[in-house]
């Protein structure tokens, strides 16, 4: 049966799938943690600048990935 299975394609799908499919949620989680994790709120209730920048950077990468995916779908790359 091995002839029927395209191992190289599956290998690629797993590796790239992990990068995007698991990496992006992890990045989102990092953003959430930066915004709302322990120590994220100062005494006056505001989020420190450094944490806000980290969170925005994480979410920005995700937005770029999503826009990239939509462009990819629109370009008919499948």
């Amino acid at each position: 049966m091995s002839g029927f299975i395209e191992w190289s394609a599956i290998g690629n799908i797993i590796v790239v799938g992990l990068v995007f499919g698991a990496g992006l949620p992890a990045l989102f989680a990092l953003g959430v943690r930066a915004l709302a994790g322990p120590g994220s709120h100062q005494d006056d209730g505001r989020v420190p600048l450094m944490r806000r920048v980290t969170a925005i950077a994480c979410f920005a990468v995700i937005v770029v990935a999503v826009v990239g995916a939509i462009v990819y779908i629109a370009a008919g790359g499948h």
Partner: protein
Amino acid sequence: MDYTNISILLVLVVATALAFDFTNGFHDTGNAMATSIATRALKPKAAVGLSASLNLVGAFLSLTVAATIATGIVDAGVVTLEVVLAGLVGGIIWNLITWFFGIPSSSSHALVGGIVGAVIAAVGTSGVQWAGLFGKVLIPALIAPAVAIAVASVGTWLVVRITRDVEDKTNDRLFRWGQIGSASLVSLAHGTNDAQKSMGIILLALIAAGAVPNGSSVPFWVILSCALAMALGTYIGGWRVIRTLGKGLVELSSRQGMAAETSSAAIILVSSHFGYSLSTTHVATGSIMGSGVGMKGAKVRWSVATRMFGAWLITAPCAAVVGATAVFIEQGVGGTAGSYVIFGLLILVSSFIFLRSRRTKVDSKNVNDDWESSADNESVVAQSVATHNPQLMRIKSKPRKKRVKKKGKQIHKQKHKKKHKKSEKG
């Protein structure tokens, strides 16, 4: 066949292809939206509305139509309008049957199966390219969920680990946004991929009937009607399938839902990029299971999953049997009348399944009700103990209760139930 007969046949094929598109829409709403509905990131109606709009947009987004269906699976030379009609009938009926049982099976498998069956009945087994059937349809059905389980479980594990010391409430609030975004992407990809299948069929039929010249692009009315048929199907919502995916497999939290949908979107797009398309349904289901595997304390109901895997394996063969039967009836009656007869039968069978489904109705109101399955009592108990959440204990008093009774938790059942309802509203 004279001109009128061909026109009538063409109309039947187009109508049936649109009907298939419709069942495809409502069968697959759950792939994108089940998790958002289950975690209450979106209200059920809003979720199907969003999914339907995105399906509609997706159908217009890309027009590189795969003008051939079942390429490399059946001998293109033997596909006539009658065969396509019978194949579509097989696909629709199997889609409706699996929908009735709430099983998320692949619509494209049903379609390919129906056409393979119709080809076998029409010209014999020589019309089928078996290597293609195994390599492109049956084996990927086994691989897709495995890959999806792997990716989603890693994603969920990472997410849960990173956010473990963030308050649950904050997690829910923020991850719901991520969930809506990733689910939208799945809807968009689904609209593009699946609406184009029906467009391809209709285009083939138009060319075969000589209504448009060979090599012409898809007429606008075809794009519009396919997009609308699928969006309408999606909006009506396959609540039965949504329920199985959202509540039956795993009790989902927003974090899991977000990880699952992102994994689905990534695998669907990546796999088509590498030219090894995996079924949206198989990927989405695998991802949801993976989100249960990757989260400590979450239990995957493997009995539900096993039933589902079984259904996947028999989807293509069963649709093939229906497709083949349709061809036999078509040929038995003969001529255009044969096509009328199977079209009529399709309507009869569909109405029957629909009316039968009214008896055990699942809709936007009860789609999120507790999943009651006596076989899974133990896993629910285990889950509620593991997550220290007694509210999950809401087991109906049916057989297999002994273990729970011993623990003395049965007495509190009513109380917990009330609490649970309250917390749901709040």
